[in-house]
């Protein structure tokens, strides 16, 4: 279409126009040398000239007659609203073709003061990447191996799914170190129209969170054979929650400011964390993770995360470890009911011997075989705003709740919310000891956990959702054996309620009235008690029978 217009203009200038361009050059000699618009006659743009000399005041040339789309986009941008016209950047009668103005011609002293990691950003990105509306953007990482060197596709895509995740890329980078003279070039490319410059630069979150810019990354590995893989963009552009969310994070709540940690443009190291978390770090320092240099603090702990580690459930904690330890299921095949165990345990339940393990209970809802932990929003809907579950459950206002109290509350919840409410349980670490050297433990002795002496039975908590957080309320004794909770529970732990000598002696000492109540409180333990008594009685009876038989025979 533009070609047709140009041809039309050319024709019209030679045939229809009253004034040929050569006549104009008599006065405007400089424009004769123009390369831009050189095939277009003067009167094509400067309309209204029918004779020479022409009137002094001429209408401004309308660029949009030809550059219709560009002008439209430009009109939406900030430059137009500031009153800048095309010719302020473009030399319309210029001698060099094509080039518009460079941004820095005007924006010479841009300090980018508010931009974190300024150097990194400015070195990698062009102006449009942040300030323009983008048509296309992405990241290309080109790895050029030295001559003759090869690295198979498997090195960068270990699981062969055609997608490289951060763990795979880091492992690949480590492998690259073996090759001297390899080259890794990262290119952050962005195509947009320079004319549509936005009033405000793109929000950090567009790249670092929502990934509406630079949302895809490709790795090109070139050596004898070349191949490409898709890479998770967070490998090259780190992820963080938006500034808006930061005050909700643990660090934000405790008053930590961005520049308390981001002191330089260098990559974050453990040195930053150790300034506050000294003791924890010294424990961690001696552990196998730190010794092997495999992980730094931020590899496991995202300092911009809203949830604290304590609020992670067993599944989320496993997800954290399994980013590197992907084969955790196959490595635990020796464990009977492997996947069932991983439903209720986390990695450090076994692999951090120094940590305090607890049995934690929480309320959950079972709908269509799907189990979800009860959230604060649901509780609020039922019990009203600013509700504290602890004061509802714990009627005697003690620090500790009892199994009976929890049981009563579940029955109440079932009436209010639905029949699917139950108490779920997990065995997780509640006080973390950062030495995770407990590898290859292969605790094959089931009774370490499946026995009343298991460590976590002496530390039982009920996790309650509060507004914006979770609280841990200690639970009294062994709630598993108490009757109401026995009904509410739906956990799969066999062997958690063995009868003990103490139970038996406690029963013997009771008056007949209390005996029934106390026997009831034993729950399923009663089966063992009655069973053993009956077996003993049976043996005694038969012994007497046998003795009598012998006596009679004689």
């Amino acid at each position: 279409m533009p070609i047709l217009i140009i041809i039309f203009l050319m024709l019209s200038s030679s045939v229809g126009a009253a004034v040929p361009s050569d006549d104009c050059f008599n006065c405007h000699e400089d424009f004769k040398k123009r390369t831009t618009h050189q095939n277009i006659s003067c009167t094509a743009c400067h309309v209204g000239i029918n004779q020479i000399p022409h009137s002094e005041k001429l209408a401004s040339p309308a660029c949009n007659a030809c550059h219709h789309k560009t002008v439209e986009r430009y009109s939406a941008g900030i430059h137009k609203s500031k009153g800048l016209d095309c010719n302020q950047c473009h030399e319309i009668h210029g001698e060099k073709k094509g080039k518009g103005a460079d941004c820095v011609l005007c924006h010479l002293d841009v300090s980018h003061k508010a931009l974190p990691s300024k150097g990194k950003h400015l070195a990698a990105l062009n102006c449009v990447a942040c300030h323009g509306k983008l048509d296309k953007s992405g990241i290309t990482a080109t790895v050029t191996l030295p001559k003759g060197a090869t690295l198979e596709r498997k090195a960068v895509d270990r699981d062969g799914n055609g997608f490289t995740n951060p763990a795979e890329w880091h492992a690949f980078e480590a492998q690259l170190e073996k090759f001297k003279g390899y080259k890794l070039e990262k290119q952050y490319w962005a195509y947009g129209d320079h004319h549509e410059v936005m009033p405000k630069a793109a929000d950090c979150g567009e790249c670092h969170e929502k990934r509406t810019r630079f949302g895809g990354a490709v790795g090109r590995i070139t050596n004898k054979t070349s191949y490409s893989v898709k890479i998770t963009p967070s490998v090259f552009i780190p992820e963080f929650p938006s500034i808006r969310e930061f005050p909700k994070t643990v660090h934000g709540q405790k008053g930590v400011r961005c520049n308390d940690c981001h002191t330089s443009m260098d990559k974050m190291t453990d040195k930053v964390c150790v300034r506050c978390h000294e003791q924890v770090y010294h424990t961690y320092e001696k552990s196998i993770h730190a010794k092997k240099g495999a992980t730094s603090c931020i590899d496991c702990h995202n300092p911009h995360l809203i949830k604290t580690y304590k609020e992670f459930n067993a599944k989320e904690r496993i997800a954290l470890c399994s980013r590197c330890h992907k084969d955790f299921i196959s490595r635990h095949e020796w464990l009977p009911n492997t996947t069932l165990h991983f439903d209720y345990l986390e990695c450090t339940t076994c692999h951090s011997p120094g940590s305090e393990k607890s049995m934690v209970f929480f309320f959950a809802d079972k709908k269509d075989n799907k189990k979800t932990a009860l959230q604060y929003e649901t509780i609020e809907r039922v019990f009203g705003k600013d509700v504290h579950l602890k004061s509802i459950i714990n009627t005697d206002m003690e620090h500790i709740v009892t199994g009976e109290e929890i049981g009563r509350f579940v029955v109440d919840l079932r009436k209010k919310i639905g029949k699917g409410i139950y108490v779920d349980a997990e065995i997780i670490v509640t006080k973390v000891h950062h030495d995770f050297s407990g590898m290859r433990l292969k605790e094959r002795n089931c009774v370490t956990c499946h026995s009343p002496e298991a460590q976590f039975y002496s530390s039982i908590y009920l996790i309650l959702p509060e507004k914006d957080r979770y609280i841990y309320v200690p639970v009294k004794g062994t709630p598993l054996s108490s009757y109401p909770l026995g009904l509410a529970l739906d956990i799969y732990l066999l062997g958690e309620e063995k009868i003990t000598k103490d139970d038996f002696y406690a029963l013997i000492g009771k008056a007949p009235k209390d005996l029934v109540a106390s026997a009831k409180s034993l729950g399923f333990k009663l089966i063992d008690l009655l069973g053993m008594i009956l077996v003993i009685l049976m043996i005694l009876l038969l012994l007497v029978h046998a003795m009598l038989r012998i006596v009679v025979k004689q």
Partner: protein
Amino acid sequence: MKKVFLHTPTIRIWHWINAMLVIVLMITGIQLRVPGVKEISSGLAFLIPEYSVTVLIHIYFGYGMSLSFLFWLLYIIVSGSFRTHYIWRTADLPAMGKQGYYYLVGIFKGSENPFIPTSDGKFNPLQKIAYGFVMLVITPVMVITGILFSNIFFFRSIIDRLGGIRLLDAVHVVTSYLFLLYLILHLYMCTMSHHVFVHIKAMITGFEEIPDEFNAKQQAAEREDKCESQQ
């Protein structure tokens, strides 16, 4: 002394295999239920396997028990043994009282056992009740709950529908106590013949020795039966 053929070779072989399975399941079951048993009996600790091994033994012998039970069920139905020996008859009701009286009182007075086993009916009414209950109620319940526990993850939805693992575990344990009670009684009762080892011998050879006086009685009883049927 007369010999009566009571137990077919199939039943004899099944009985001893089943006995072995029951004993192993009982012992491992006790360890599963009372994990501390290893610490309690420190002197015997070397005899007691690792807990995880115990779990495996219990599971595989449990599978064996399931097959054994299925085989028994098919066999007694197909061979007609169920109809002959297990079905309750009208004459059994009054005989039950007599039998009970004999075990509790009569035996000490020197009276004779009111029941004489024959190939047409080898169980007295009390045996019918006990064996029927153990083999048709307790064992199937234990076998089914046991199979569900052998792979909790796989059978999870069924377990949930049946009332959850805790309830099923309780059922499994209750029935195992009942089985244990029965087993003790069974072991004792097998000595209750005119000689201590007669019943055990019968389960090995198939023939039970019946004293002549029993024989005379039996013939009299048979005669009575015939008369009744003629009338």
